[in-house]
């Protein structure tokens, strides 16, 4: 580990569990909930955020000494918006169907609070390399929750994972369906996203008592 000092590794691993952007910092919830009905969409969203946050953090960190603090929010927004336009155009070119599913939520990466939160809290006060690691760490922590929620919702809601029928065929009654299992279509509806995230938070805080809030 010559490349990463102990402090640097902490930057990456911390947001994965104890300082997770979604469940602890309460940032970037909107997209986490809205596009997780399918696993594929959640993976693409995670990768997009990884790109935007990693690159954006480096850019802001490089510019941190020349940005006047009064207009920093607008500068940050322009940087994010530029990166998001790139992501949006790439998605439209190479995965058109998927970009339709994600609809406005790719655009909403701009206002994803994780990005602004990390710019404000980290990139404005740290060097490019550390900012890059911090961006990657937070984006992976975000992606982990997204993929977890997407996994459960797609598996229980339509019995598939990435489009493959892992639980058997619901029409021909093979696999689990032979025992009378039915898809829980409710998992695909929006309220269940909230409840699944709530349950993940419950599990996480039961395992680590230090995270429990006052009320």
């Amino acid at each position, binding site marked *: 580990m010559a490349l990463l000092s102990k402090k640097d590794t902490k930057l990456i691993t911390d947001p994965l569990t104890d300082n997770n952007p979604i469940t602890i910092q309460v940032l970037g919830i909107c997209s986490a909930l809205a596009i997780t009905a399918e696993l594929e969409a959640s993976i693409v969203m995670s990768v997009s955020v990884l790109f935007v946050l990693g690159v954006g953090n480096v850019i802001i960190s490089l510019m941190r000494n020349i940005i006047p603090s009064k207009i920093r929010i607008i500068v940050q927004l322009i940087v994010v918006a530029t990166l998001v336009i790139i992501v949006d155009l790439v998605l439209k070119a190479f995965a058109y169907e998927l970009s339709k599913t994600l609809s406005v939520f790719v655009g*909403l990466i701009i206002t994803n609070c994780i990005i602004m939160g990390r710019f404000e809290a980290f990139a404005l006060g740290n060097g490019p390399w550390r900012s890059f690691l911090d961006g990657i760490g937070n984006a992976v922590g975000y992606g982990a929750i997204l993929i977890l929620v997407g996994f459960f919702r797609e598996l229980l809601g339509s019995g598939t994972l990435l489009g493959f029928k892992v639980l058997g065929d619901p029409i021909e009654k093979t696999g689990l369906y032979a025992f009378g299992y039915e898809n829980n279509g409710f998992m695909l509806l929006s309220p269940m996203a909230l409840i699944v995230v709530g349950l993940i938070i419950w599990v996480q805080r039961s395992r680590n008592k230090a995270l429990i809030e006052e009320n």
Partner: protein
Amino acid sequence: MEHLELFFKSIFIDNMVFATFLGMCSYLAVSKKVATAVGLGAAVIFVLAVTVPLNWLLDQYILQEGALAWLGEEYASYDLSFLSFIMFIATIATMVQLVEIIVEKFSPSLYNSLGIFLPLIAVNCAILGGSLFMQSREIPTIGLSLTYGVGSGIGWFLAILAIAAIREKIRYSSVPPALRGLGITFIITGLMAIGFMSFGGMLTGGDEEKKETKVVAVSKEIPKEQVEENTTEVLSDNLHTNKQ
């Protein structure tokens, strides 16, 4: 009628928090007290009411494909819609700055209680989401876009008001320790979202359930046809086409 329909639709059926999860970050962070929740909710209504029509104008006369036709014929083929993210966010950031200045001038106490969250409206996904949905749903007139902005603002306001009231009360109940705070808020929001889904049938029986609306349409059409033509042929034809 069109306005009324869009208004109620954007408040209850397409509620920003419960149907599309927009503005969740500030919804979760500022909903601990009713007073601050009301302040932020009002600010969101105002900003949405201003930015959505403004962005509608931008979209209509600058960004859309062929929108630049008013400049001259050679501009008619331009499509600047890839710029919409930047243009929309610039409008929003400007408007938020303006609101901040006005609030600071006229209500310093509200300004202090909102604190960091006022500038955060600029990065509240509800605001940008409102403009992007306005664009993707192709709202036809500026009046309707104003209705849409105000309606979705009120929907967001209602949601944050309700959750803030519930969170004030929940302090007196014994929630499992690990679920306290964020966890229970998520689950309550989920339950509220289930409640709001029942509004889906309020207008025309809901858009998504096309099968059911078709059946309703058939049963409504048949008596009309009977009165007008009074032949069974038309009726069976009608049923046949509807089945297809």
